[in-house]
């Protein structure tokens, strides 16, 4: 299965948030597409991102690398990158790599969009 990406702007408690809905498999082949999307958003001035991973079927370390890269980019603009994920098999990868301490992980888009530091 290929990667699907769609973005929308949602007003949140702390201002507008850009929600990136990701579906399919994020691996060594498809991760560059996600990277391009995140880079493009940041270049266009979207610094508060919510990556919705509820429809992700597979995630590997390449995908984690892209998310870490996205986080670095938004932080350079004092932005934020929040994840939405309830899938145990995806969450497990974040736990194994210690990235649960790096990314705020939310149970719903609504919660992520309205979260403020």
């Amino acid at each position, binding site marked *: 299965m290929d990667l699907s990406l769609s973005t929308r702007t949602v007003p949140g408690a702390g201002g507008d948030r850009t929600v990136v809905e990701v579906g399919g498999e994020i691996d060594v082949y498809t991760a560059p597409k996600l990277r391009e999307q995140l880079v493009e958003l940041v270049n266009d001035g979207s610094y508060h991102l919510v990556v919705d991973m509820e429809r992700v079927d597979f995630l590997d*370390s390449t995908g984690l690398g892209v998310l870490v890269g996205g986080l670095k980019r938004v932080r350079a603009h004092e932005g934020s990158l929040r994840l939405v994920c309830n899938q145990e098999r995806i969450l497990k990868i974040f736990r194994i790599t210690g990235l649960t301490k790096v990314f705020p992980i939310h149970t719903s888009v609504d919660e992520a969009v309205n979260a403020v530091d």
Partner: protein
Amino acid sequence: MATVELRFSAQPEHVRTARLVAAAVARRAGVDEAVLDEVRLAVGEACSRAVGLHRSNGVTTPIRVVLTEEEKTFSIEVGDEVPGAGTAAATAAGVPVARAAAPAEDFDDADGEDEMGLAVIRGLVDDVEVTAGEDGGVLRMRWPVLPAEEDADLLS
């Protein structure tokens, strides 16, 4: 003798194929359904790493994946042909070895992508072994298989 052996050119698009084949063979071998996701992820990480090593070192030979069903275990070997690569993985301590780093344009986001992949594998799989030789490195992973229900097939 291997149960299934797969060779693929070092292109990222083939890693998914390797994952699917490995998971299918593991299921047939009797690896617990609950563990199949881990097998899929671990073999994907091992193959991604091998693809990265081949590409960054200009190695044009294929990656080799050997899936072997044994009496009590199912094993996967992913072999690369980059000399010294396995050594780097085995030590994972920054010991200088004769291999090029991953190209910056591919991996500009995460420092030490190779280490992150290995960290995932080690976090998932209890029985992991990384060896190296002059001809390249091999990453071996083993999982237990459920006892075969010998009579079930005969009766059904």
